[in-house]
């Protein structure tokens, strides 16, 4: 569950103010946010993830006004309730696949669950690279690891920033379907921000910035 109310944001060095439409998602509802580059898509995502504080407006997630939380509480809330997927997937370089997932669980204060991790890696076809370092993974494997990292801790909201923009048509479909399935599995809201119109048909709910 996520609601926003009259969110605005302005970067310190610029004059232009971003005003964002209100979002109101019930449990298990997904949302596609479309928009051209530079319109503030990533800014909105970072606001929703609590990485940036809004100039005005309110974000309520799972009944919590996230902007009223202290830094420490916000870190904890983010770790437990939000999963982020990036355009180009990233994981901690010095750790291997399984260690990255373990670290993800550790920081979100969830207990280490090797069965869950193994199941997830199995579902995403990453069985063979459990012990691989991040820099040994292929682009596709890294993308799937990124998805695994965003859902392993059973978040309430999955925020995906341009997850498909550098994928071909086939992989684009696979990645989005994976995200939708994982969101469904964990009863999470999925919000995808993109300028990629190929995935429009997979979402019933969409807004254009």
């Amino acid at each position: 569950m996520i609601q926003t109310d009259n969110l605005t944001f302005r970067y310190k060095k610029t004059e232009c103010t971003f005003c964002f439409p209100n979002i109101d998602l019930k449990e298990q509802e997904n949302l596609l946010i479309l928009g051209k580059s530079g319109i503030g898509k990533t800014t909105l995502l970072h606001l929703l993830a609590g990485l940036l504080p809004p100039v005005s407006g309110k974000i309520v997630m799972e009944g919590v006004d996230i902007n009223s939380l202290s830094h420490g509480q916000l870190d904890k809330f983010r770790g437990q309730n939000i999963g982020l997927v990036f355009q180009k997937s990233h994981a901690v370089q010095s750790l291997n696949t399984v260690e990255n997932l373990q670290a993800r669980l550790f920081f979100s204060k969830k207990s280490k669950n090797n069965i869950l991790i193994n199941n997830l890696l199995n579902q995403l076809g990453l069985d063979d690279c459990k012990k691989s370092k991040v820099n040994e993974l292929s682009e596709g494997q890294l993308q799937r690891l990124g998805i695994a990292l965003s859902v392993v801790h059973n978040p309430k909201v999955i925020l995906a920033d341009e997850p498909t923009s550098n994928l071909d048509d086939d992989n684009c479909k696979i990645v989005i379907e994976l995200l939708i399935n994982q969101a469904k599995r964990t009863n999470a809201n999925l919000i995808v921000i993109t300028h990629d119109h190929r995935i429009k048909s997979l979402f019933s709910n969409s807004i254009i910035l």
Partner: protein
Amino acid sequence: MTIWKISLQNIKTRPLYTFLSVFTLSLSIALLLGIQQLKTSFEHQMENNLGAIDLVIGAKGSPLQLVLASVLHLDNPTGNILYKDAKKISKSPLIKTAVPISYGDNYKGYKIIGTTGEFVSLYNAKLEKGSVVKKSMEVILGHTVAAQLDLKVGETFLSSHGLIENDIEVHSESLTVVGILKPTQKVIDRLIITNLESVWDVHHHDNEVHEKEKNHMEYHEGKEITSLLVSFRNPSALLTLPRRINKHTYMQAALPKYELDRLYQYTGVGFKTISWIAYIILVISCMTVFISLYKMVKERAFDLALLRTYGASNFQLIRMVVYEGVLIVFLALILGLALSKIGVYFMFKITETDNKQNILQELPFHELLQTVMLVFSMIVLSVLLAIYPIIKMNISTILSNEK
């Protein structure tokens, strides 16, 4: 998964930087500890060797040489003084004990000291085997001498003239071992002790060969000793006795403590130079640690931002970097300690053969702690500098700039 484990993995992915940090840091630690240990051992041994000797009276010349020769038994004596003059001085009420010593011979490099029974008590040395010297041509051996030369009570040997081992001027009379001393860790361990008469007799007979015209009476009238080791009855003698001797007699009086302090000033320059080099290496190694951590923080900014999105707090990220510093310091400390131990051990192996004495001294705990604290505070500074970017980190900007 813990922060420790992530820190450890971070270190493992940067083997070169980790190696450089640990290597330079341990080198400086080893140098600092090694030089401290050498200095402490050196000074401790010197002081230990003084025993109960407050003053040395000998022939005029360099007072330092007199102390080195008569107290530390490292140098050649300045010359001889007449036994009767020394006896006159020892009657002074300011003096508690006055022990005459006479040099001249050695056996395989170990000096033979002609002296009285009191010499042994200056060093609190006790007999391990046998008895004390009762008559001429009997000797007791310091513990090191007996062990190194494998001499036992009852065995005999021929001494050679002079203070350096040689086969050319060997005396004809053999000396008999009557006793062996317990180890004292003092200079007496490497001395061969006999009575004054032995030294005189050996040289008297030699003199007979060389200068047959000299008669026995004349010789004993002019009996000589090398020096007189004095311990005071009370410290006030320090002010009057040396001055009186230096001013009014042909002899000189030297204060071993004072002369050794002068010696430390000369040798101190070397210790200081090496200490400074060690400090410079310490600074360089701390810079290496700083650069290594700072580079990690900067290059892995995205990783760190990612960890923040995982729910890690700033404090946890700081702990991660601090732990890396701690791991490096810990490794370096162990390696540094081991290096200094090995280094000092070999230094003493070498000097042992020169001095025929083992003087390795353990470093007092507070000095060890001092060095460790110094290293730690330097590292704390480097780590603090390295974590500064974490505090300033803007996750949103870093994540937006992902490419």
